[in-house]
């Protein structure tokens, strides 16, 4: 970048802001009431102007590339289907002055303490209802008031540990709370990604811009969670609903970032009042669970009947004081929209003070006087479901705006309000401040709300300094929701002093400290094992298909009996070779992608990308590829991509227990496939050319040529592909590899009694080792196939249940 002169800079700035017209009636973050740029933005705008359009475009692309490379996505629910979407980053951060931020933090800390007092009462004495400060119906009819938790005091002494608030700036410039998020607020992990991506766009400025860093917040929360473990034992887990959740990426990301185990409901079980995770090394205690799962789904025995993503007995473990939940089950009741109507009063009652930061004006329509007010002021109010926990700008359950029904005719507004009153609330229509966002290479004002995260630490609540703002997709405040085309921006809290660089790492003299290896949950091991099996199965199918299609393309071979042998092998996998890219191959790779999606926190991003890329290519080929030469060429491309994935697994994946399971799956599948190939191609009845075919399917053409001075015969083929311990395609090589992996699994430590699995493994391995090419005939191969398949059952019974 070259430094521009003052006049050029001025020109560039006026181009940038040419279309920037603040919306009348709404304050603007960039432009003050006097029409000039607010001081906190001055440096930033100057920097932006100096960058120039081209440089800026390059940098924005770099940020997007980072997000794609990091695999940041969220799941968008559509009318018909759901899909993974790229993270909609707005490349303009929102800048907030440190002093103003301190005010925001103070107001929200007060509110967090107030919410804690309210929820403690709702699950404790219930004085607020008994004394008439809260209507009984709003609690008793509330699906988030979980009766099995009433009377249960959290082990930690607190219900709330991690909360978020959506706040917006109102017309007079003051901040309003739009909604309280206490169930399982998402976004903190995305905030980190916002920061990384945004700081890449403005890398030189960010380094000197005195922006408060985010890592310190996460470090203190991580330490706080670890401090919550009873007797400092047991692990901290993050409970996710699973890969189909809209923010699963974040769950996996946070788990990796904080070094906690990512768990699903079926990983957990309860024993003697303690929460345990099923691992490949047996049951291990979980002492703190940061749940990203809505409470009603957490326990099918006591909460939502029929939940398939919960853990039976979780409530019992909480009741027994066996686990600290972050946040306590039942805290979600605080998100109830109607509660906003009562917060001013509850603040007076519980703290003796008015709210430090007001919330959006809200009225519960269960009382006659309130309904009269709402009828009289309908034109400036939105009326919606009282027990909704959605945000005011998520309009799904808002029925009436400014006196007009949003859908369907429900008769007169007044009559409807009288009939449905207790189920309804009215809220002042939201107007938020605007902040700059890019429209092409110019800036435009867009409505904005902040999401502010607070974490409880031993010395009180800490706010994450910035990181997350929602930006509207148009100038309409109702369009803030991400699900409706809005975007998300980083928030920079700007200090007037230099800020300390923060990172997650402990600093100090003895800073080299390895994190202890987390134990591998059985479900994760199962998915890695099947990922290995499906990837290998896909590869094997592709090799067979390549061999088939090459021969098909050579006219004189088209009706050779060899094709029959190949077809029989392929049909054994459910593959119809008359399709160019058979459906069964798509299914097998799809299963591999599915398994990998469930262990995304344990795979490298490159590995995940390589597999997704392979899957995309395969699906694209499936549309056009014809049997014959075309398919053979396609298989070449696919096999090379497959080798890319396998290479990443071998070269880059840490040798943790999960890697062993992935490779056990690969080895077992490969041993099975080779046994099956030999049983049919090395059979004395097999047609001519079968030996060469077996060698080709085993990718051992060159090796055979070098190792044996004769043409392929049964003895050389069986020797090379079954009995040669140096050939990575041979059966015995795979069995040796499996034996080594198993020796590293729990229960196989030296000087231990031999496990059933190890015993079966050694028997099978020895069975092959003592064969000669003569004795390993077709019958013996079929028998061996059964024994190898039996190893899979034994492995599952030992580790994967």
């Amino acid at each position, binding site marked *: 970048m070259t430094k521009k002169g003052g006049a050029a800079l001025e020109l560039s700035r006026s181009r940038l802001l040419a279309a920037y017209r603040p919306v009348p009636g709404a304050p603007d973050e960039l432009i003050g009431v006097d029409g000039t740029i607010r001081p906190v933005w001055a440096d930033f705008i100057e920097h932006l102007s100096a960058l120039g359009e081209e440089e800026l475009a390059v940098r924005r692309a770099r940020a997007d590339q980072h997000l794609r490379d990091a695999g940041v996505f969220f799941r968008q629910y559509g009318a018909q289907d759901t899909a993974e979407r790229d993270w909609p980053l707005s490349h303009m951060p929102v800048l907030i002055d440190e002093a103003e931020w301190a005010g925001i933090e103070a107001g929200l800390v007060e509110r967090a303490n107030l919410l804690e007092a309210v929820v403690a009462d709702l699950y404790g004495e219930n004085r607020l209802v008994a004394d008439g400060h809260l209507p009984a119906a709003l609690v008793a009819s509330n699906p988030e008031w979980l009766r099995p938790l009433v009377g249960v005091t959290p082990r930690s002494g607190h219900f709330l540990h991690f909360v978020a608030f959506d706040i917006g700036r109102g017309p007079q410039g003051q901040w309003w709370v739009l909604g309280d998020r206490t169930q399982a607020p998402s976004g903190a992990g995305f905030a980190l990604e916002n920061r990384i991506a945004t700081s890449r766009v403005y890398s030189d400025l960010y380094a000197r811009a005195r922006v408060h860093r985010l890592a310190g917040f996460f470090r203190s929360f991580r330490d706080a969670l670890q401090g919550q473990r009873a007797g400092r034992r047991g692990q901290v887990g993050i409970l996710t609903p699973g890969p189909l959740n809209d923010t699963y990426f974040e769950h996996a990301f946070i788990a990796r970032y904080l070094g906690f185990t990512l768990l699903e409901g079926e990983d957990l079980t309860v*024993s003697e009042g303690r929460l345990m995770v099923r691992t490949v090394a047996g049951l291990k205690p979980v002492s703190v669970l940061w749940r990203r799962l809505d409470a009603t789904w957490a326990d099918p025995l006591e909460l939502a009947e029929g939940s398939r993503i919960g853990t039976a007995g979780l409530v019992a473990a909480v009741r027994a004081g066996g686990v600290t939940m972050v946040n306590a089950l039942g805290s979600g009741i605080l998100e109830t929209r109607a509660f906003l109507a009562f917060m001013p009063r509850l603040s007076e009652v519980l703290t003796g003070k008015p709210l430090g930061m007001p919330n959006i004006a809200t009225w519960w329509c269960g009382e006659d006087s309130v309904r009269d007010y709402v009828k009289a002021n309908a034109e400036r109010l939105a009326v919606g479901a009282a027990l909704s926990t959605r945000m005011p700008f998520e309009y799904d359950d808002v029925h009436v705006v400014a006196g007009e029904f949003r859908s369907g005719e429900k008769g007169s507004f007044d009559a409807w309000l009288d009939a449905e009153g207790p189920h309804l609330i009215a809220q002042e229509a939201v107007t938020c401040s605007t902040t700059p966002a890019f429209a092409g290479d110019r800036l435009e004002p867009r409505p904005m709300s902040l999401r502010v995260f607070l974490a409880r630490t031993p010395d009180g609540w800490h706010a994450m300094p910035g990181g997350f703002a929602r930006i509207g997709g148009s100038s309409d405040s109702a369009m803030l929701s991400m699900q409706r085309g809005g975007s998300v921006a980083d928030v920079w809290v700007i200090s007037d002093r230099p800020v300390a660089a923060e990172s997650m790492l402990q600093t100090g003299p003895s800073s080299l400290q390895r994190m202890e290896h987390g134990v591998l949950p059985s479900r994760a091991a199962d998915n890695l094992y099947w990922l290995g099996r499906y990837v290998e199965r896909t590869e094997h199918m592709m090799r067979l298909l390549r061999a088939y299609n090459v021969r098909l393309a050579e006219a004189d071979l088209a009706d050779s009996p060899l094709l029959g042998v190949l077809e029989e092998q392929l049909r054994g996998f459910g593959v119809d070779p008359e399709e160019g890219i058979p459906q069964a191959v798509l299914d097998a790779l799809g299963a591999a992608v599915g398994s990998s999606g469930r262990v995304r926190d344990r795979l490298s991003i490159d590995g995940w990308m390589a597999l997704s890329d392979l899957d995309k290519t395969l699906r694209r080929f499936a549309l056009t590829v014809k049997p014959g030469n075309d398919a053979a060429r396609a298989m070449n491309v696919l096999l090379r991509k497959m080798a890319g994935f396998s290479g990443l697994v071998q070269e880059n994946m840490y040798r943790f227990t999960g890697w062993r399971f992935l490779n056990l799956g690969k080895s077992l599948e490969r041993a099975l496939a080779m046994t099956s190939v030999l049983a049919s191609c090395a059979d004395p009845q097999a047609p001519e050319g079968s030996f060469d075919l077996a060698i080709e399917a085993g990718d051992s053409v060159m090796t055979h040529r070098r190792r044996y001075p004769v043409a392929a015969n049964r003895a050389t083929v069986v020797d090379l592909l079954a009995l040669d311990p140096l050939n990575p395609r041979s059966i015995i090589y795979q069995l040796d590899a499996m034996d080594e992996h198993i020796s590293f699994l729990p229960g196989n430590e030296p000087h231990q009694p031999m496990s059933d699995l190890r015993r079966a493994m050694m028997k099978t391995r020895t069975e092959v080792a003592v064969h000669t090419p003569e004795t390993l005939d077709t019958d013996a191969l079929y028998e061996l196939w059964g024994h190898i398949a039996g190893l899979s059952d034994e492995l599952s019974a030992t580790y994967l249940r």
Partner: protein
Amino acid sequence: MLYDVALKISYTYEAQADAGRHLLRLVPMDIPGEQRLIAGALDVLPKPAEWLNRTDFFGNPVVEIAFDAPHGDLIFKVVARVERLATVAAFDVSPRPADLAREIDAYRGLDPRAPHHFTAPSARAPGNIEIADYARQATAEAGTARAAVEALGLALHRDMRYDPEATTVETSAAEAFAYRHGVCQDFSHVMITGLRAIGIPAGYVSGFLRTIPPKGKPRLEGADAMHAWVMAWCGFETGWLEYDPTNAMWVGTDHIVIARGRDYYDVAPVKGIMRTSGAQTSEQSVDVKPLG
């Protein structure tokens, strides 16, 4: 009225049942002034690894058991001696149905018997327009809340056919009502849905019926298995009343209470989550012998 109760429920599994956790509400309650549990014992076979006695939100005794290893068939046995005291007041002092809302609003507090828990649709008794319309018509003439309860109960008994084969424990109230058939669970869920629709807080009671009728009276439906009926809040003065729509009668000394809640889900006799692959079948036998 004094009774000896004997209950046996057995589950047979096709494959071995894996470790699991169950909540049991099987032993009659002790309710001051209504019902005395003189003696009661619950036996579970095979012996569970964990056993915990506690009380749920609605005040029902619950036994929570867990198995830590795979097991075969599961058997629950209850023997109890119960004295039943309750009678229905002779005079109807309940308010007009339309005035009940005001009394509910005036009730502050969320104790287990508070009407507030029983006004909103619940998991097994969600709102239903057809049932709501039916309830409004059936109770149009009723001058009081108590009269409305009886009118709806009588109407359902008249219009719905008792048929133990027609529905299962999973059948929804809406479906049972659409076909106008079912067992005590269906009658009760339909009636609860109807009562809530007309503004009367209503809940679900599980229990037993005497097996042998008094001399000269017909045998009651549902006496050979666990039974269920409805409770309805009819204002401050009257409080909770219980009505058995399956037999079109106010609950009296022929009924023995096990548990009370918003619907079947709150009081299910055996609620269990286990990892098992095969199918399961269950059998139930009940004997409620009056001792005089």
